[in-house]
């Protein structure tokens, strides 16, 4: 069965059915099959965190999951955060206000890592935020403004 397999999954609350080759990574499926290019791909071995998505609500690397494994599951990508372009999610709004990004390559992965983090830790210390960011690499910012943005978001989301 190296031939395509039919899968049905929910992405950002919308249901999709597609035929996929088993070797297709979930990251490539989201980007190339569904056109959801907000999920970025940096390393494809789990290290950089740019491809982080929510899989049934938990943050995971989409480059280390095959699309066929997502059959029947619910995925949330960065495109699922804002209602529309005038109504950013408070986490996104905070990144904007606190200058939490420069080139933005790492940002979608960071947002998708911080959503469950802030849910579990609504009032995090700087130390906890830095620890939670350790699974996402950013080559531009030096992290300081990212930490500030997450802190700001925790206040907005209270």
């Amino acid at each position, binding site marked *: *069965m*190296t031939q395509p*397999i039919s899968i049905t999954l929910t992405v950002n609350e919308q249901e999709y059915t597609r035929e996929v*080759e*088993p*070797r*297709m*990574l979930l990251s*490539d499926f989201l980007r190339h099959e569904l056109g959801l290019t907000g999920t970025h791909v940096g390393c*494809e*071995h*789990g290290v950089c*965190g740019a491809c*982080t998505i929510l*899989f049934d609500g*938990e*943050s*995971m*690397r989409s*480059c*280390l*999951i*095959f699309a*066929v*494994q997502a059959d029947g599951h619910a995925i949330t990508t960065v495109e699922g955060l804002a209602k529309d372009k005038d109504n950013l999610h408070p986490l996104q709004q905070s990144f904007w206000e606190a200058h939490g990004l420069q080139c933005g390559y790492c940002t979608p992965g960071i947002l998708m*890592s911080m959503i*469950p*983090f802030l849910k579990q830790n609504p009032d995090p210390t700087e130390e906890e935020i830095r*620890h*939670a960011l*350790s*699974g996402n690499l950013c080559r531009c910012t030096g992290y300081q403004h990212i930490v500030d943005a997450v802190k700001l978001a925790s206040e907005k989301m209270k």
Partner: protein
Amino acid sequence: MKPAPFEYHAPVSLEQALELKAQSGEDAKLLAGGQSLVPAMNFRVVQPGVLIDLNRVSELSYIREEKKAIRVGAMARERHLEFDPVIEKRAPLLHEAVPFIAHPQIRNRGTIGGSLVHADPAAELPVLMLALNARMKAKNISRERWIEAKDFFVGMFTTALEPDEILVEIEIPFMPPRAGWSFMEVAPRAGDYALMGVAAQVTLDEAGKCKEARLVYLNAGEGPLEAREATQLLEGEPPNDILIEETAALASEKEINPFGNVHASAEFQRHLAKVLTKRTLQQAIQRAGELQ
């Protein structure tokens, strides 16, 4: 980079998985969390012809408290170990160490079984299984057997599992009474593979003498490495700073065998081992005393 093509199966029971494994031979790989296997496939370092995905075999995903031991299904996620109250109470050493494994995003998917079978000498779980005297249940289509942790890890990325076997369960004995524990490691950044790490568990007798001590190291040899000679210095004695110093020296200078890497020379790893051995022993002994 994309993985090479493979045939994909997603069994929903252990029986189906065992049958598939028996049929497809050595060209088949089991897929657990994929946090080690998929990177290797993405780089095409590994190119299995058949992939048997265990993620829908829900009967392999549990953490259960029995009379004297915890039983963990091979597909229990690392993140479940981290927050499980039974593990916190009955195997506090494991509870303390799991957050050192990678990042939450990896632990959400990675499994105990996958980590043990991957048998990376830098991994935490193999070290913990050895320190905790755990045993592993392996199954093939016709039989099952138990393998002690000390016999399970046979070398670099190698275990005692036969090609047709699936690791199905891990049995972890409860921490004995009057035992104390400690886990410490040094990594370049939180979540990175550690340069050196030590798991210590010390059991005291009623008089406060050391009844049993265990020291197991990561990244200190071909697999999880136990310092048996060094801990004999402590056993039968009331622990004190001089003995701890001697134990740490013997373990770090003679017993472990670190290879060094780009981040740390073997000499630096030995230095870390010495410091971490002292600190973990002190903490373990202190905790054992508090629990008396």
